[in-house]
């Protein structure tokens, strides 16, 4: 009887991991739609290809080496992971199935990689991107992930990142930033004298759908990161996480709307979408400690930050078609830095330390990988391919191939 109950708890927690994982997996569709909506139609097939294949590569690489690097048999507090075989074996007396944990973790890796595809859209070679994704998902992410979630030295240093504002989102943005610098801007984005020429995406309904998919998936992302549900404390925690996650997204959207209205007199839809995502990224560092009201506040600030951040990157001539650097990088950092306001276990210093380590490592490691790819096979499509669109060159078929003149 006691055993039955223990097994029942095991079953419920496993189920909770799996359902959370399904929601995070669904975020792959969210990124795909968001990015497909925010690029021009001549590059849409290619961005769709990147998105579905990166998810496939992330899942495969994390199975082959990534999970092992990040979680299996590592020493506590270390810098370097051990290497063993695949995903290890289920521990005696575990609270949930090992595979359900793996499943939940594997979809996170894909999220980190999805962040990159948006920032480098419309100009990066398909295969350069795919090769990079092998490295990020198989090695770079698992390595830095180990430092905190695998029990490595950042965990020991008191760095606190509940569901990955830093470890997933800012890390993805760091990898993206390296690429954005190395790649240069899309042709025509920046004019003389700092002029910014917007390049409107082709499909606002897809961008909105993508954002709402991400919003939905985020309940799995943050909610699942409690890592247990089966007693009252954990269940209540998960409930609060859902409420806070939703509140931050909502106020992020509203804040972006208001800033947009005040600044330009109009409701800039893609800024509102970015505002919602900014709120989500920011609350991800700690969706459990704040009250819902405080969470709403964090979301609102993130919704403001994201707009000014996007404008700043434009001024710096760092071209990011979907705003990934601002949403995931800047608001990820912001999320990390406000953790100590609500969570006594975290200090501003340790948060800064952790953020610096993660950003530094991922940026440098990514820079090296991108650079090698650049030197060997090149990272950027030719000017002519950029003009005609990457769909024809890389994929062979346009996104909307009917005769209708493009």
């Amino acid at each position, binding site marked *: 009887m006691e055993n039955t109950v223990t097994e029942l708890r095991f079953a419920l927690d496993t189920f909770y991991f799996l359902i959370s994982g399904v929601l995070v997996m669904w975020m792959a569709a969210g990124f795909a739609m968001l990015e497909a909506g925010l690029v021009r139609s001549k590059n849409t097939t290619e961005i769709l290809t990147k998105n579905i294949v990166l998810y496939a590569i992330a899942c495969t690489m994390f199975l082959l080496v990534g999970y092992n690097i990040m979680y299996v048999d590592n020493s506590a507090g270390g810098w370097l992971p051990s290497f063993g075989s695949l995903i290890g074996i289920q521990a005696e007396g575990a609270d949930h199935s090992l595979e359900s944990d793996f499943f939940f973790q594997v979809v996170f890796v894909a999220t980190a990689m999805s962040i990159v595809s948006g920032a480098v859209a419309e100009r990066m070679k398909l295969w350069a991107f795919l090769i990079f994704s092998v490295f990020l998902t198989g090695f770079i992410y698992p390595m830095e992930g180990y430092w905190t979630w695998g029990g490595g030295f950042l965990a020991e240093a008191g760095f606190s990142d509940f569901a990955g504002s830093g470890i997933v989102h800012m890390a993805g943005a760091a990898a993206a930033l390296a690429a954005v610098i190395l790649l240069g801007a899309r042709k025509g984005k920046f004019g003389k004298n700092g002029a*910014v020429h917007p390049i409107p995406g082709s499909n606002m309904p897809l961008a909105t759908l993508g954002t709402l998919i991400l919003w939905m998936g985020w309940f799995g992302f943050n909610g699942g990161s409690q890592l247990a549900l089966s007693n009252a404390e954990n269940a209540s925690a998960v409930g609060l996480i859902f409420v806070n996650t939703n509140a931050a997204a909502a106020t992020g959207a509203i804040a972006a709307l208001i800033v*947009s209205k005040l*600044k*330009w007199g109009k409701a800039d839809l893609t800024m509102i979408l970015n505002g919602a995502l900014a709120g989500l990224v920011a609350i991800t560092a700690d969706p459990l400690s704040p009250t819902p009201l405080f969470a709403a506040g964090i979301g609102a600030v993130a919704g403001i930050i994201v707009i000014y951040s996007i404008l700043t990157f434009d001024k710096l001539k760092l071209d990011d078609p979907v705003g990934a650097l601002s949403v995931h990088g800047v608001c990820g950092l912001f999320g990390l830095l406000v953790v100590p306001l609500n969570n006594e276990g975290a200090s501003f210093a340790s948060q800064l330390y952790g953020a610096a380590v993660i950003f530094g490592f991922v940026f440098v490691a990514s820079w090296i990988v991108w650079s090698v790819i650049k030197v060997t096979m090149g990272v950027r499509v030719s000017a002519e391919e950029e003009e005609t669109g990457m769909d024809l060159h890389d994929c062979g078929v346009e996104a909307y191939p009917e005769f209708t003149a493009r």
Partner: protein
Amino acid sequence: MKMLTAIIKPFKLDEVREAIMNAGIAGVTVSEVKGFGRQKGHTELYRGAEYQVDFLPKVKLEIAIKKEDVDRLVEAISAAANTGKVGDGKIFIQPLEQVVRIRTGELDEEAL
């Protein structure tokens, strides 16, 4: 015969089509175009950057007609397409030397 080309505001299409039919003209070919002219465009906003869109949506009608129908049709179209605001469009008249109806091989005025 003449080829009459009219550039009009899109929302006037239905009225103009009726005017043409009432003028007894049996055929029209229509296409969507963008027009640039005295009517000024609008400012759009995308991700915080404003930009000027100068090309405005217009509809182009091409109508092959007998010479003697020109004046009547110009008047009919002008009346129907007129809003009195800049951007109402233009009518162009060009020579048309020959017309062939593909189905029957009929020629010129017979083919209209």
